[in-house]
């Protein structure tokens, strides 16, 4: 257990142990506690254990991801003292884990804001990672008694919600915007708080995109269940019922829109996501229709129906991915939707009608 004698209460009798941050000693990631002028601060471990990994995995697949959080407040890493840096972050457990695992060997404080279990960027966009919460959390934790300097390090993406000059005006703390990625924090601190252009730039790498795809796919498949239900009902009356091939064609379009397009994003021509999705969707559908020889006269309706319907599905799903991307603007997405949605909807409708005629007639 790591303990610091710094800031221990002065006299006997006045030492009622005040907790700066409520915590559960049984949590694997709590490594001890530290006494400060303002009370007891939990020390967190920089190790990620199996339970943390399992939690992260579940979140990525969309299982219970709304409720993965840590208590807001102040935490310690290593054996910080009153001159140690203060990092500010969100109370989403995954964000917290990503941060602490990069802090091995560093002595610092972590101030966790109450962002309702949402990551920094989203929370900053909503304003929960914001000026008011930061000012409030500084006061609640008694941070100004714990550290003697007046400097906070915020993740750069938090700037969307925090007005640095306002925080300084109201609390005396100055705000430094640190690197975008947690892995650069040690270098940043060691270099005397200089963030390079590289550290500041938001990237959207294949890996970043890959971890986002499971949630997209799970959501799309949930909606698809009702599509399968309708297919089943139609089969009760159909002259030529839906079969395995239809299932494959459809799932292919979903995967193209939710996984393939996001992964290959910068490689696919065009700028609009819907266009990219439509293009990959069309390639998939054309290949599969051709493979099954659905453009032969007797199944022409089926072939054309799919060529219209499936790329629209891929296009819509791909467009949905703008929500996960790190570079699309509101004006851009609005413009894209105004153009793409009418095309997607009409193409889908015509396609579905053709399919129904083929199946039922």
């Amino acid at each position: 257990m790591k303990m610091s004698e710094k800031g221990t209460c002065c006299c006997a009798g006045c030492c009622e142990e005040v907790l700066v941050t409520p915590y559960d000693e049984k949590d694997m990631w709590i490594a001890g506690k530290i006494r400060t002028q303002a009370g007891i601060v939990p020390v967190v471990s920089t190790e990620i254990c199996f339970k943390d990994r399992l939690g992260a995995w579940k979140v990525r697949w969309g299982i219970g991801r709304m409720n993965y959080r840590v208590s807001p407040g102040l935490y310690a890493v290593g054996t910080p003292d009153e001159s140690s840096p203060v990092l500010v972050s969100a109370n989403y457990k995954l964000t917290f884990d990503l941060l602490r695992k990069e802090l091995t060997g560093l002595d610092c404080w972590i101030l966790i804001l109450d962002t309702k279990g949402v990551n920094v960027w989203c929370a900053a966009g909503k304003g929960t990672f914001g000026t008011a919460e930061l000012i409030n959390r500084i006061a609640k934790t008694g941070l100004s008694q714990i550290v003697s300097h007046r400097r906070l390090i915020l993740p750069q993406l938090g700037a969307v919600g925090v007005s640095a000059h306002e925080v300084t005006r109201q609390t005396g703390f100055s705000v430094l915007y640190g690197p975008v990625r947690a892995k650069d924090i040690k270098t940043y601190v060691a270099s005397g708080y200089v963030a390079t252009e590289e550290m500041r730039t938001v990237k959207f790498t294949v890996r970043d995109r890959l971890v986002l795809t499971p949630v997209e796919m799970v959501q799309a498949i949930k909606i698809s269940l009702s599509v399968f239900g309708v297919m089943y009902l139609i089969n009760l009356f159909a002259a030529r019922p839906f079969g395995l091939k239809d299932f494959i064609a459809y799932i292919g379009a979903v995967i193209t829109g939710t996984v393939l397009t996001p992964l290959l994003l910068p490689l696919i021509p065009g700028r609009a996501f819907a266009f990219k999705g439509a293009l990959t969707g069309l390639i998939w559908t054309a290949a599969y229709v051709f493979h099954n020889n659905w453009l032969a006269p007797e199944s022409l309706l089926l072939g054309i129906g799919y060529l219209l319907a499936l790329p629209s599905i891929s296009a819509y799903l791909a467009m949905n991915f703008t929500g996960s991307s790190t570079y699309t603007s509101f004006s851009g997405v609005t413009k894209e939707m105004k153009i793409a949605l009418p095309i997607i909807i009409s193409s889908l409708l015509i396609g579905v009608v053709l399919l129904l005629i083929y199946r039922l007639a």
Partner: protein
Amino acid sequence: MKHKYLRNVATLCLTAEKCIGCGRCAEVCPHSVFVISGEKAVIKDINSCMECGACAMNCPVKAISVNASVGCVAAIIKGWFTGSEPSCDCSGDGECC
């Protein structure tokens, strides 16, 4: 590989007369839209702007305006139907929303 999105749509606007050249906007922008050139901020690459609003939020003299909102289909559709500000209820991970 740098991602490119639609051109000429961003609502970002800089009032150069007000700017005191503090450099905050260049510091907070996640897509390096600003450069500081001769004591003043200059918009260098407006097409990379994602309208996050960080620059406007942190400009001490309010020299920047941008119609900040989320660029997310589900949120925008919801906004259209409810007539409210788009907001995302996702809690995706990493840097997303």
